[in-house]
């Protein structure tokens, strides 16, 4: 019995220390990111991904950082390398957490990075894909403000392209503000977006 208790205690101690190690690691990565050390942040997320194979957030953030930093790149080879890496980590994340709307909209963002680089080459196939990705995400999480916002922004893009009013989508963006405000999320969960929503709303008012 004693032995059992000892063993159990040991197990608990080890688990707690491992758990907190994950938290410290993630916290450290976020701090690096906040201080514009994106490479270091991405690399730490990558290490956490390999060490903690049950969490979808670390690979999700590796992908997110690669995608965000690929916008505006001129060299197709570098862009492709970064987005390939992002895809690889996004796939990891969705294997751990299938049917996750946050991953779905990030996949759409990845496609958008390709379209932004060369619309002629990627636009035809990937924009159709994005339409269905956003639809899928909205079906999974109709009240997720990040899903609503990113879908609305995508729809605004195509409406502007066809010279149509972006008005109907502004209402969707307006809807996200209270949703953002009352959102209660687990630690390290993607929670960004409210500032972006406010910026988009400013654009709406100008119209």
């Amino acid at each position: 019995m004693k032995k059992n208790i000892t063993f159990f205690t040991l197990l608990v101690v080890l688990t707690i220390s491992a758990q907190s190690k994950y938290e410290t690691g993630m916290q450290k990565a976020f701090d690096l990111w906040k201080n514009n050390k994106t490479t270091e942040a991405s690399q730490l997320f990558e290490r956490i991904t390999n060490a903690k194979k049950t969490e979808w957030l670390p690979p999700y953030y590796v992908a997110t950082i690669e995608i965000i930093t690929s916008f505006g790149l001129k060299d197709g080879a570098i862009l492709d390398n970064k987005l390939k890496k992002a895809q690889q980590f996004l796939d990891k994340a969705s294997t751990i957490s299938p049917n996750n709307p946050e991953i779905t909209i990030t996949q759409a963002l990845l496609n958008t990075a390709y379209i932004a680089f060369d619309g002629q080459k990627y636009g035809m196939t990937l924009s159709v894909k994005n339409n269905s990705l956003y639809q899928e995400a909205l079906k999974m999480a109709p009240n997720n403000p990040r899903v609503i916002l990113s879908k609305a922004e995508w729809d605004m893009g195509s409406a502007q392209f066809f010279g149509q009013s972006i008005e109907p989508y502004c209402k969707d963006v307006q809807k996200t503000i209270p949703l953002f405000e009352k959102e209660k999320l687990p630690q390290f969960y993607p929670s960004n977006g409210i500032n972006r929503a406010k910026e988009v709303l400013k654009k709406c008012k100008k119209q």
Partner: protein
Amino acid sequence: MKQLFSLFTFLLMSIYSFSQVTIKGKITDAKGNPIEGANIYLDGTYDGASSNADGNFSFSTSEKGAQTLIASFISFENFVKTDNVENFKTLVIKLREDVNTLDAVVINAGSFDAGEKSRAVALKPLDIVTTANALGDVAGALQTLPGTSANEEDGRLFVRGGDAEETQVFIDGIRVFSPFLPTGNNLPTRGRFSPFLFKGMTFSTGGYSAEYGQALSGILALNTINEPDQEKTDLQFMTVGLGVGNTQIWGKNSFSINTSYINLAPYQWAFPDKNNWLKPYETGSGEMVFRHRTKNDGLLKLYGAYSYTNFDLIQEDINFDNGFRFALKNNNIYFNGSYKQRLNNGWSISGGLGYTHDNSKINIQEDRITNAENSAHFKVKLKKRFSSRLKLSFGSEYFITNFNEDFHQISGNSFNNKFDNNIFASFAETDFFFSKKLAAKAGIRLENSEITNEFTISPRLSLAYKSGKNSQFSFAYGRFYQNPKNDYLKFADNLTSENTSHYILNYQYVKDKQIFRTEAFYKPYNNLVKYDGAFASPLSNYNNSGSGFAKGLEVFWRDGKNIKNIEYWTSYSYLDTERDYKNYPTSARPNFASKHNLSVVGKYWLESWKTQLGISYSFASGRTYTNPNIGGFLNQETKNYNSVSINAAYLISQQKILYFSVNNVLGTQNVFGYNYKNQPNTNGVFDRQAITPNANRFFFIGFFWTISDNKKDNQLNNL
């Protein structure tokens, strides 16, 4: 108990805090240049660091014993080393470049890729449908690339001095035996397949892989879409007919169908051409694809197509006072099934089968011909990926063709001609990257043909060397065999295969949406079929004593960068070729081969009108013809060919498109050759008739409407 617990706590603390090891080192590329920003870490731990500008790194870890150290950096292969952590105290790491990146050398002599996956895209997916003179036809769009000749009266692909039957078409790796719709003399044809069931294609004008055989000049490999993105219905209303398409998706399955009916009667009523149409051109076609992804990620595709063609016309002919009648009814069924599956340890398997049944009823003047062809293709291919630097593929295939033709003359005579043409082939090929700058592909193809009773060996080799950041040189060599065409095999049983070799040298420069490439080639032909008589008939004598050559130089330039909203490309091909084949009395340049071909295509996106405007210009220097009034064979040349086509696609809304195009808008009077009268007139001169297009201009207006849930998709990709 308490003591024991403290002891454990103490032990744990000591693991975590006391035995730290510092890992230090320097990381460089193969040449010794430091790499900044590489990620060096112990696998499965949080311990690691980034290298600094000098390539130095350092971090401490409390891990013990055997650990795996990984160093990774984008566009380099990972460095992996397992050892006792104590041995990682001073490391010197050299990373090898990853050869699977966009800036690595690519083996591409002779071939053009269209699709988003390839690295240097000469044609983008949208180009097939927005190139002004192509009218949504794949072959039409490919004719704007170098290495092809503009033979407007035919419509098929003539590659580098080869005639149209020397280019084979494949769908998902399986041969399409009759890829083009049948037409009459001087009536251009179109591909049977609609472009939008495909996601990418490779068009090779020479030096292609050992996987492909029975093609002396070129191959066109099309891949169908793996998984459609959404359910939708497409409607097409055109001046020449109607089209309907639908896509359904359920679970891991999807099904697409696309049908069309074309009838040129209203068009010919509005714009009569010079022919007398007894039955205007009518064709109905349907294609469907079923796709299923299996539990273990295998992919099954079943593609089926049916088409029906019917027309009857009388064409002016200088040798027939009442004109020359030609009528045709054709049915064609094509089925293609393929399966792809990844296996363990880098192996993958793919295979499939294709089957074609084609039958025609033809009336030539008062004579009747009925023929039927049944062909099948079975193929299996294995691939092994040893590393990103070494890949091997090999496989086998079997082709069966059975042909049967009945010929009934008005005189009451009838003939029956038939043959079986079965070929067994095996191929093996390896791709090897020596470095990111130098790569080779070497293969061999073995074929055993029953009808010619021949065993042939075709070696293939390609090399590519990257000479600078944006430029590379490639070289390709290959030997190619092809059995004589049906037109000869049905009359002769003593023939062997025709053969050629390709020597290709290519230079390519790619930068920022700009591509420049130039290619020089040389091809000697041997064992070409010769016969006697005015045309190939059962009475002719056949042999393989023909020969020929083709050599040339081609230049391609595409630019989507320098001018805003404008994308354009231009191709120039110089071709020097002569053949002594068919019933040629001597070696001469065939009628279909022009010395100079030039093509310019431009597209302009007019933002404020939501309209894409396109223009294309083709030029071909004169074609040879025989003038019996002076001595010699193919002794004269026609005037140059010129054609300007324009088109416009107007996006009415996201799902409605209005499309408009005019081919040969300037109405240039082009001449493809001359027909001479069989007998001289009273002055002893042979009169002649120019072979010209049936109509100088061709107008097309279409309205394309897509209905889908998300109201976004449109048919811009079908146009």
